[in-house]
Structures are given as C-alpha cells and as structure tokens.
C-alpha cells in the first residue's frame, strides 16, 4: 500500500479524492473503492467466512464510509479511517450472527461455525506453514487478528493500526504483542 495515500496513476492523494467526493464527485469516491476494495473485501471474508456475505458486507462498508465521509478529517490515513468504519460493521456482523443463532437461522444451518476460508492460491503447493498460519489466524479474536493484518500485511505504522482499530497507540501495541503471542502458542500445539 502506498503510505502517502497517493494513487499510483495520477498522483492524486486520498484526501483530495475525499474532498472531491464531498463536493459531489461520485467518481472520486469510486477511485477510493477500487483502491481499497481488496483489503476491505478480505477483512470481510475473514470475518464472515462466506464470499457472498463478504461481498455484501464490503458494499455496506463502502456505503457507510460514503455516508460518513464528512467525519473524516485527515488526521490519519484515509485507509485507517475506512478500516475503522469497516471493522465496526464486521463487529456488528459477528454480534448479530451470534444473536441470530436462535432467531434468524435454523438450528445447525449451513453457515454455523464454518472453517475459515483458505484462499484458492493457498490450496495448491503453497508451503505448509502458510496454510497453517492462515487457518490459525482465522481462529484468533477479530481484534487481535486485524491488528496483525494491519501491522504486517498492510504494513501500517502502529499509529495507523491504532486508528484502524479505533484504540490508543499503546492499546494497538498490546494487541499486536498479544496477537503474536496467541499465534505462537497455537502454532506450537
């Protein structure tokens, strides 16, 4: 990810796109969707397990971000802000899914307690550790898992990880530390 938030093609920053979108330019927001749909969709896929639900949640996340765009003030990267919005939706989804077990869904319905989805690219000849890490990552609580993803997969500085998770910098450091600790424990067993 480009840490300056500048787009690869025309040097326009995310903040400029946000400004344009706030002035009614929907296409400017479209550029932000294209730029960040991959990490947001993957966040939702890790959360929901099913690709269809992930697509629905991603849509919801971008629509919510668009609706709340005026609350983005550029203190942190746009991506961190977008991630925080999306993570709130992911949390709500998990909460509703748990609550919905008795109401929304038939008992033992098909998407109860699914195994985390492993990307196709990992199904073949990838190294065993990678598959192992992916699966175990999926069993970590959302807050620890996403702290690790933001820090190491998205390569964000801790300050931005904190913004993405909606917590303090020391809280983010703690999440990363404990996330690694939990992964180590799980990998050793």
């Amino acid at each position, binding site marked *: 990810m480009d840490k300056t938030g500048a787009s690869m093609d025309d040097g326009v920053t995310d903040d400029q796109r946000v400004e344009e*979108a*706030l*002035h*009614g330019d*929907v296409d400017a*927001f*479209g550029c932000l*969707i*294209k730029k960040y*749909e991959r*990490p947001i*969709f*993957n966040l939702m*896929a890790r959360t929901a397990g099913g*690709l*269809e*639900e992930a*697509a*629905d949640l*991603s*849509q919801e996340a*971008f*629509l919510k971000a*668009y609706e709340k765009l*005026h609350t983005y003030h550029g203190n942190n990267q746009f991506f961190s802000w977008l991630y925080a919005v999306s993570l709130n939706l992911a*949390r709500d989804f*998990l*909460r*509703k899914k*748990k*609550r*919905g077990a*008795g*109401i*929304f*869904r*038939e008992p033992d*319905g*098909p*998407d109860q307690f699914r195994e985390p*989805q492993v*990307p*196709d690219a*990992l199904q073949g000849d990838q190294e065993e*550790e*990678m598959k*192992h*890490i992916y699966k175990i*990552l999926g069993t970590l*609580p959302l*807050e620890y898992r996403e702290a*690790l993803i933001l820090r*190491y*997969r998205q*390569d964000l500085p801790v300050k931005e990880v904190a913004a993405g998770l909606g917590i303090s910098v020391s809280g983010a450091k703690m999440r990363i530390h404990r996330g*690694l600790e939990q*992964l*180590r424990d799980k*990998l*050793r067993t």
Partner: protein
Amino acid sequence: MNPFNNHKLLPDRQAVDALNEMIIQGIRSLPDISVPADLATKIMGQLRPRQPSRTRRVLRFLFRPQTLTFTPVKWAPALAVLLILAAGLWAGREPSPPWNPLLQEAEFNYVTGRNFLVQNNPDQALFHLRRAVEQVPDKADYHFWLGVAYWAGQDPESEEASYQKALQLDPEFVPAHLYLGHHYLEQRDWQGALDRYYRVLARAPDQKEALFNAALALQHLGRVREENRMWTAYLQHNPSGTLALQALNHLTANGDLGFQPVTLGDRIRVAPRIGFEKSPVQLTPASLAVLSEIGRDLSVTDGYILHIVVYVQNDRALAEQRAKAIKKQILDLNPGLSPHRVRVSWFDLGSTIQVKDQTLTLPADVRIFTQKQPDHIKEEIL
C-alpha cells in the same frame, strides 16, 4: 509434523524471535482472496452525488486556485472590514464546554465494554458498561449496550429492563425497539415481539432483522396472510443469502409460489416468479425487472450460460412463443450480452414443485438457471 516445533530446539528468547519472524513473514506473504469483479460497480450504482455543505461551498470558493495581485491601498478597506468582523465573532463566540472527566471516563468504559462484548467476554463487558451507566445515567446508548451485555450474560430480566430504560430516555431509539423485539421472540412472547418489530418497521421499513423476525412471530401467531406479506417484503429488500432461501421455503410451505430461486454462477438469488399479462407473451413489469437484473448479472459473470426453461401444460406452441419472448427481452434489456449465452427450451408439460411432502404441478412456469460454459461449445441454439 508441525513445522513450528523445530523452534523448541532453540533457546527461549531466540525461539520466540525466530517464530515471530516466521509468523510475520507468513502474514506478509499471505495471498488475498480475489474481489468479485462487479463489487465496485454495484457500490457505485448505489451512490448519489453528495450535496456539499454551505460552509464547504464557501471555503471552496475562497480557496479555489487563482492568481491574485495584491495592491495594499485597494485591499486595505476590505481587510479592515474583515478584521472588525473577526473581532466581533471572537467577542461573541460560544464558551467552549467545560472539561468533564466523568464523561470521558464513562465513554472509555462504554467503548471498553463494547470491545469485551465483541471478544465474547460478557462479564468484563457488564463491568464496564455498568460503570458507564452509573457515571452518565442519561445516555440511551449506554443502557442499550448494557442490555446487550445482559443478553450475552444470559440475564433476560435485566436485559429487558435496560432496553426499556433506553427507550424511556429516547422513545425513538430504534435499536432498543429492535432488540426488545428479539428479547420477546426469545421469550416466546410472539405478540410482544411483533409489536416491537412493527415499531421498528414504521421508522425503518426495510430493516431486515425486523422483517424476518416479524414474519417468524406471525408464523407462531398463525397469521399466515400477514406472515406471507412479511416474507415477501423481506425478499424484496434481501433477495440473496441463506435467509432469503429460508424466507422462500416458508413462503412455499404456506402455498405462496410467487417467488423462485434463480441460480447465477455461484450465487442463488430469490426472484419473483416470471409471469405474463393478459396477452400470452406479454411479460409482467415485475418479470421484466427480474430479467433485466439477471441479464445484467450475467453480463458481468463470465463463463456461464443462462438456461430458460418454459412450461405450458398442453400448449407447446405457446411455450415456444414465451421462451423466445423471454430471450428477446433479456437481450433487448442488455444489449452487450451475447445471444450465445442465453439458451431456451420449452415443454408442453406443467412444472412440478415440492411443497412439504406434496408435489404440486404448475400449469405454466418458467425456470431459470446457469451452467458453466464449456469452452468448445460456441454454437447458437435459436
């Protein structure tokens, strides 16, 4: 064999560092799951241009790119007016709100409590949310989330009391109505739940949980016609996903055959059954909308052929006419779609549907599904 166990051979600190390094490298090189090709298009289709606020319009006007030539004599009067105005604004400004440490601490407890809820730790969540409510007792949001924490801790009486308190503070607080509905549904108080869901739907007519659960409550109350209307409303707003299929099953079991599953690639959506107007080949407006959407989805889903099967009992010629009319409509509505990807067939038989343990025969019907496109088949059927 677990590849990570090798690190047990190293001294403790070194082993931890080595394992961390391997984990970090592993996370860095994890491949992503591919994003559906039409995701951005679908989102863009739902966006409407924002109206910039008046302040933003003024700011943009003031700070638009321009070349200025500054002539002090010319600008002096304007500058003086601005300074006077600024002085006036400064003198008459609202005093900033006093720093309230209790409010800050309550907010911290509230956020922490919600985080513990996410981590499935209701005890800790309750501790913090109770503190938040004690510190600032007049926030409906705090009481609502305390109710959710009581639910997670399986204390239904306190759960209900918290939602009621939230509603006392803010009678329009929709989430509290909704969750009170869930609470009553779990307590098998069907009428209580229904009343709450109706209140939610009066404020948010497409709220999916309220629609789905209201239908469930109506089912338990034996009010079949209202129940079917509720499932139909749910499906109109939420045509795909597990719950849509469940809604379809409930409707079908009640004898309402107005909807059917449509398989498009890996996705199943529930759509109104294709129907015709008085003229035997004139499609209803609802059917035209369904065909338009199916064609659009097919245009962005490569590698699939759409099959349309038309049934008209004892009338093969009409079945053929209808099949050709449907194909024409889909292609007319989606000019970019290749005719090779839409195939039709027709039968002078009725179609059969399984309803509970009965098999029903519909004298006229249209079934729609997709099939993976074999690479070697390119010919056109019609």
